[in-house]
Every structure is written in structure tokens, then in C-alpha cells.
């Protein structure tokens, strides 16, 4: 797969993942852009991997987690979503926005775990591999993140999980 083929077929998905991960469209754009510039430089090696897209997503996560040093020049702004909702969806939309705002306040590693688990559908083992930590550590991040969001667990495994 060439870089151009990857961009044409998979970049949209990577961007969607990035915007969920960062909770910010502008930051997602910056992060993915940085990642792609680096990936472009060594695409020959990346293309030889079994799953180039997974590797790029991992780069996105790492870039997001290391973005702290760049916050100084990043001016936060309030994202205003277009008000296209139907009246009966207003409550759900408001609740969703509130939840996303709370997700945005979580520590980045907790946020990354929740996105990788609930948006990407990855297992804790896979998440641990991406973040470079143990599976139990991943569950700990998830537990604390979900607790902060007041999310009621449906998974029995998670219900019994208490990293503390």
C-alpha cells in the first residue's frame, strides 16, 4: 500500500479516531498532520507492516499523549456544534455534549483508553500494547475514567474490577 493509497482509503477513519481521541477538531487535525508528515518520511517501512493503519493510529495516540509540550502555543477555543437537531433530540444531544465535555477533562491516558475501548473496540490487551502498559493498568485507567463519567458498567468483568 502506497502512502497515497493509504491516504485515499484510510485517512478519513484515522481522522475520525483522532477527533474522538482529542475531543477537538483542530487538535485532531494538527496531530494527524504531524503524524502523517513523519509517517511519510518512512512510509517504506510502515507499508511493509501487516497493519499500516494500526501503526498510524498508534502514532496518533502517542502524538496525542506527547502533545503536552505543544499546548503552550495552542489556544483552546470552545467548539460550537451546528444546531441541526430535532426538538425531541435536544435532550440527548445536550447529554452527549455534556458527556464529551467531561471526557475532554479526563487525564489523557484515561481518555485514550476509553476511546480505544469504546470507539475502536480494542481489547484491553491491545490497548496495553499501544500504550505500552500492562492490561491491568489499562483496566485501572478505564475504571477511573468511567467512574468520573458516572458510567454504569454492564460488563461483569469491569464490575468486579477495582484497581484500587
Amino acid at each position, binding site marked *: 500500500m502506497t502512502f497515497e493509497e493509504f*491516504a485515499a482509503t484510510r*485517512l*478519513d477513519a484515522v*481522522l*475520525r*479516531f*483522532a*477527533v*474522538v481521541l482529542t*475531543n477537538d*477538531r483542530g487538535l*485532531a*487535525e494538527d496531530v*494527524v*498532520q504531524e503524524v*502523517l*508528515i513523519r509517517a*511519510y*518520511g518512512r512510509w517504506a517501512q510502515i507499508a511493509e507492516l501487516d497493519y499500516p493503519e494500526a501503526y498510524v493510529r498508534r502514532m496518533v495516540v502517542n502524538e496525542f499523549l506527547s502533545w503536552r509540550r505543544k499546548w503552550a502555543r495552542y489556544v483552546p477555543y470552545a*467548539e460550537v*456544534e451546528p444546531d441541526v437537531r430535532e426538538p425531541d433530540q435536544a435532550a*440527548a444531544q445536550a*447529554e*452527549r455534549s455534556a*458527556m*464529551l465535555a467531561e*471526557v475532554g477533562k479526563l487525564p489523557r491516558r484515561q481518555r485514550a483508553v*476509553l*476511546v480505544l475501548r*469504546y*470507539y475502536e473496540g480494542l481489547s484491553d490487551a491491545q490497548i496495553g500494547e499501544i500504550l505500552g502498559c500492562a492490561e491491568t493498568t489499562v483496566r485501572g485507567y478505564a475504571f477511573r475514567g*468511567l467512574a468520573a*463519567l*458516572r*458510567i*454504569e*458498567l*454492564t*460488563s461483569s468483568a469491569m464490575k468486579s474490577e477495582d484497581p484500587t
Partner: protein
Amino acid sequence: MSRPGGRRSEDDLRAAFAAKATQAPKAEDVLRAVRRATRPRPSKLRWLLPAVAAAAAAPAAMSANNGVCRPDQVRAAVTVRRDAGVERATLTVTALADCRIARVPRVTWNGATVGAVPAPDAGGTRSGSGAPRTATADRYGLLAAGATATAIIAATDPCSARAGDAVQVDWGAGEVELHATGAAPRCEAPAQPARLNIGPFRGLS
């Protein structure tokens, strides 16, 4: 959807993430920026190359004219002073780059040829200055960048050299016209035809 008491479900979180994903920027916008950033830029070498070429050509140019100082490679001046009633002028040449000049330059003073005292280690006649007439290598000396060579022009008669006189100097690169300067006392005697002799440059290697 949130549960009573403010509790939420994992599905609520999935739905929120899915909704957020719809706000993703367009791939084409990001790609455009990436292409701009990864586009091969004009190499800085592009600006360096002419300088390198010029530097490489410099030795060739130097050899083409035997490395003789071009007028733009030196600062030259003639100063006159009166010494025991007779004028003495000093020709000063300061190099801006390494180059060579004749050990004894050819000089005319107000149109009159200045006699040359040959350099001790170089042959030649005393019939007049004129280093280029003999092109042997030892007729030229190297003047390093920043170094100054001086040659004394001595008059045999008073009032032969005055400030303001036109002096043509040829150290091997063609005639350069200078005007003598100096705080020489005003010469009371009528101007004499120049009867001057120039010695070899000092300060050459």
C-alpha cells in the same frame, strides 16, 4: 441515554464518541497540508552553489592573470612628505584578498616615468619602472589579505612631488590612477619635472 440519578451507560459513551467522530476534518484538507510540508523544498544548496562555484573559479581566475591583484582587491594610496628639503612619497598597497603584485611597480608621476630601483633579488635595468616587462615569477610577491606593502618614491630634486599630483601605478594589473596626498609644506620653488625613483615594495612574501 442517561439513566435516572445521572448514571450513564457504556452505550451512551459509544454513541457520544460516534457523534463526535462526525466532526472529523476532511482528509483532503489534512493531506493538502501534509503535501505542502513534505514537498521537496528548494535546497539551500541552491543559494550556496554560486558561491561555491565562484570560490572554485577563483583559483582559476587567479592563475589566469597570474594571481595579480586586481584594482578592486587592494587599497592603494600615495602620500608625500618633505624630508630634509626633498620630497619623499610612499606608495601603500593593502590587499583585501591574497594576491600578488610586482615587487617594483611601474609608476608615472604627472606623466613622467619614475625610475625603478630593482628589487635586490630580481634582475632588471634601471631604465624605468616596469615590472610587467619581465614576467618571471620572482618579479611578483605575494601580498596576503590584510597585509600592506609600501614602496618609497624618492625625489632627486625639491618640489618634484606635491600633494595632488596624479600618479599612475601599475603593479601588473594595468595602470591605476591615484592622487598624491599629504601634508607636505607648500613648495616655494617652481615645480620641477619629476625626477623620481621608486624602490621595491616591502612587505611582500
